[in-house]
């Protein structure tokens, strides 16, 4: 398990259209020492990413208005800056596998599992 100091500086983008879920995930990640930013759909996420530093991890919902998670993933691989950023997909659609992501977490999201997954992808170099 990592201390809050280990997590400082790691940037996570949370892309989720449901405000309650998005706000709760951002609040929990911030409480755990991460720098978390919210986006309400894939378009908002791409706009945000075009004007900020590349995040260390993207947490992505699939079913969203304006631009859904599938479209976002296709756009992401076209951008060399974003192509290497790990993506954790959160979805209630357990039977869909028509996308590429580093990890899939099924909704409802177990917070302990989410934090363990985030910790796995946000490691300081040299830490186990």
């Amino acid at each position, binding site marked *: 398990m990592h201390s809050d100091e280990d997590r400082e500086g790691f940037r996570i983008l949370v892309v989720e259209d*449901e*405000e*309650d*879920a998005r*706000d*709760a*995930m951002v*609040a*929990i990640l*911030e*409480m755990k020492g991460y720098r978390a930013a919210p986006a309400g759909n894939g378009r908002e996420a791409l706009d945000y990413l075009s004007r900020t530093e590349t995040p260390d991890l993207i947490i992505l919902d699939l079913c969203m208005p304006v631009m859904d998670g599938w479209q976002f993933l296709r756009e992401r691989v076209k951008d060399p800056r974003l192509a290497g950023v790990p993506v954790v997909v959160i979805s*209630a659609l357990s039977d869909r596998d028509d996308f590429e992501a580093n990890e899939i977490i099924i*909704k*409802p*999201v*177990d*917070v*302990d599992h*989410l934090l363990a997954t985030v910790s796995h992808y946000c490691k300081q170099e040299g830490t186990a």
Partner: protein
Amino acid sequence: MNAIEERRAQEQKEIEALEQREAHAVLNADVSTLQTLWADDLIVNSTANLIAGKSILLEMMKDGRLKLRTYERRPVRIVIFDDLVVTTGNEISQLIGRTAEFKTFVSYLNVWSKRNGNWQLIARHVGAIEKAKAEPLR
């Protein structure tokens, strides 16, 4: 009223009081009361579709990230199975924070278990009914 009915009525009152005591502790972020009313293995499935346990919820309260301006609970049905009780009803709350402009109406289901003579909340599920614009915070 016979002795069994009297005992049932007494248990009903006890659970209603317990439900209100827990809701009051949540409203006031009374972590020490919740430490005793919530089981260590409590599991909560929220309207945000997040499953959280006791430690993360108490941490959010202590950190001020889970803070309520108002919180009312109205149990509609209480079913007692010896040392296990299921309560269900509705709640109206208003958070302090990013979504403070809304009042949230939810239905809930709480499961209480009597452990070592004390009732503890062991499981809770909350489902959204609707959100309504609320009075702005002053």
